[in-house]
């Protein structure tokens, strides 16, 4: 199972832990396929206490990974949520046992389209079954079983990570003491599906994509994937932030070039975002994970009434949104809050003033840290979790 790894996977698996699951009991996917065995690559920080009551699961977003708080072995950059996780930070490994898994369908060590089909031994590529947010969550739950973690003190995630948080709370409520879905929605909107479709079409229109079998042909749809990333990256920012950062400033020149080079700084910036992304992410994986987000519709899975997803929920919720996020606007968080209120669940909701758009949840946002700290303090007091002040 560990053969035919990409360089990125090999580097990742050398720096994190992994478990091979589903050998006896395969994972029944929403599409009806039984997947097994499958590998989950994950990272942990801190230790599980004797009562097994201090576990926190962090769920990463679309292009995130398991390296929350240590150097990413592929990019060499620091962990994507190092501002939040680490000694002396809000999520301190001295207090909590923190787990983050690379999602099912991912490309940094967990089974996805890069892996070989156990039947036949050929790479899955586009023959990999389409996975859902629910499948990702069930795979995470199987890993927790494997690790002997009965339930989670808290589960936290932004964007697609927030979708996983909601799915956990809805489908495994008895295993979720508290939940923090940040900058997310209970279903992917038409506009968001539309943006994902542009990205997927860019990948599939790249002649190097070869119907998904580019590795067999030793090519890579780098241009298509870069365009997909450029489009998506715009949706992570805000008009205000783009204007503040770039305006109409020119790139390394004093006058317009009357051509199609990157005249403007914003063009150069986007090209850079696109080209660095292809070095760290797999195109097929991008297709699968965007699809999982598109398929997410928690109300749809509960008779069209979102509140039904949370009836009798014992979980304490804290939702956060950002004022300038137009990908997952505050309105969508508020709908979740209304549904939680209708289910008489314990819920807090904070909208944070920021001009940084959707990306704000990954950035240094003191109000987000304060909110999370306060929420965890309150939850820990109710849970009787010691060592917290």
């Amino acid at each position, binding site marked *: 199972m560990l053969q035919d790894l990409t360089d990125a996977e090999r580097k990742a698996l050398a720096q994190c832990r992994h478990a091979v699951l589903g050998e006896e009991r395969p994972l029944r996917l929403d599409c009806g396929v039984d997947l097994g065995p499958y590998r989950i690559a994950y990272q942990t920080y801190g230790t599980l206490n004797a009562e097994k009551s201090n576990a926190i699961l962090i769920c990463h977003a679309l292009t995130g990974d398991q390296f929350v708080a240590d150097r990413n072995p592929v990019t060499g950059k620091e962990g994507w949520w190092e501002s939040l996780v680490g000694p002396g930070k809000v999520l301190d490994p001295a207090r909590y046992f923190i787990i983050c898994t690379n999602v099912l369908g991912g490309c940094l060590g967990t089974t996805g389209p890069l892996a070989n089909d156990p039947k036949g031994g050929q790479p899955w590529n586009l023959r990999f079954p389409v996975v859902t947010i629910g499948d990702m969550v069930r795979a995470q739950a199987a890993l927790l079983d494997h690790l002997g973690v009965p339930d989670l003190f808290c589960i936290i995630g932004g964007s697609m990570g927030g979708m996983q948080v909601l799915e956990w709370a809805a489908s495994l409520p008895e295993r979720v003491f508290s939940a923090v879905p940040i900058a997310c929605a209970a279903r992917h909107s038409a506009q968001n599906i539309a943006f994902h479709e542009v990205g997927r079409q860019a990948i599939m229109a790249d002649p190097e994509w070869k119907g998904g079998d580019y590795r067999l042909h030793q090519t890579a749809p780098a241009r298509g994937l870069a365009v997909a990333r450029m489009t998506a990256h715009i949706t992570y920012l805000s008009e205000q932030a783009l204007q503040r950062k770039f305006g109409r400033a020119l790139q390394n020149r004093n006058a317009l070039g009357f051509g199609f080079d990157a005249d403007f700084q914003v063009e150069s910036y986007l090209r850079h975002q696109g080209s660095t992304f292809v070095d760290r992410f797999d195109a097929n994986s991008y297709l699968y994970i965007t699809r999982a987000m598109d398929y997410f519709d928690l109300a749809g899975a509960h008779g069209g009434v979102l509140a039904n997803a949370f009836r009798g929920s014992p979980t*304490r919720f*804290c939702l956060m949104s950002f004022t300038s996020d137009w990908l997952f606007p505050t309105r969508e968080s508020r709908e979740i*809050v*209304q549904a939680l*209120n*209708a*289910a*008489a669940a*314990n*819920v*807090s*909701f*904070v*909208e*944070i003033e920021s001009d940084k758009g959707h990306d704000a949840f990954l950035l240094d946002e003191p*109000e987000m840290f*304060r*909110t999370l*700290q*306060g*929420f965890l*303090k*309150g*939850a820990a*007091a109710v849970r009787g979790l010691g060592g917290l002040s």
Partner: protein
Amino acid sequence: MKPQIRVDLQLIADMVEPATRALDVGCGDGSLLAYLVNFKRVDARGMELSQAGVNACVANGLSVVQGDADTDLRDYPDNAFDYVILGQTLQATREPRVVLRQMLRVGRRAIVSFPNFAHWQVRLRMMFGGRMPQTTSLPYKWYDTPNIHLCSIDDFRALCGEMGVSIERAIVLNSKSRPIHMPPLLANVFGEQAVFMLRRD
């Protein structure tokens, strides 16, 4: 040691049985919520109009959402709480009658405090000053007040009667925030504010 909270909030807190469920509508900085959670083991939630107030509450570990008493109580199911509390906010709602009805749908009991517009200081200022009254419990000018539905203690009792709502307790406070014990006619003159506990009939 128990913290000092505003006198009317303390009276409300004293009305709430320990280990119950309560929703504080217009919870402000969360001082009543924190008291109920920490000293009465109440499963207490809050709703607050100002986002800054909400953020401060949540950062203190309280369960609070941003919301408007006029529009957002309808999200909650019937009998979700033992008490729904509305402190010094009824007079600022657009439809006090609807809000009271919603409170008594969502909660088995409603606790409401409000300033008395028939307090003698208000009467004197109107009668002899000829100007819109400004007092300690009504500190605003006519043009910047959020209070759009002021009432007297007797007005409130009348509304409860019309709505078929039982008054379980009524505490009237004088201008020094001390409870006074007087017949209703006098209480409506010497009471600066009142705290009512209501129940559906």
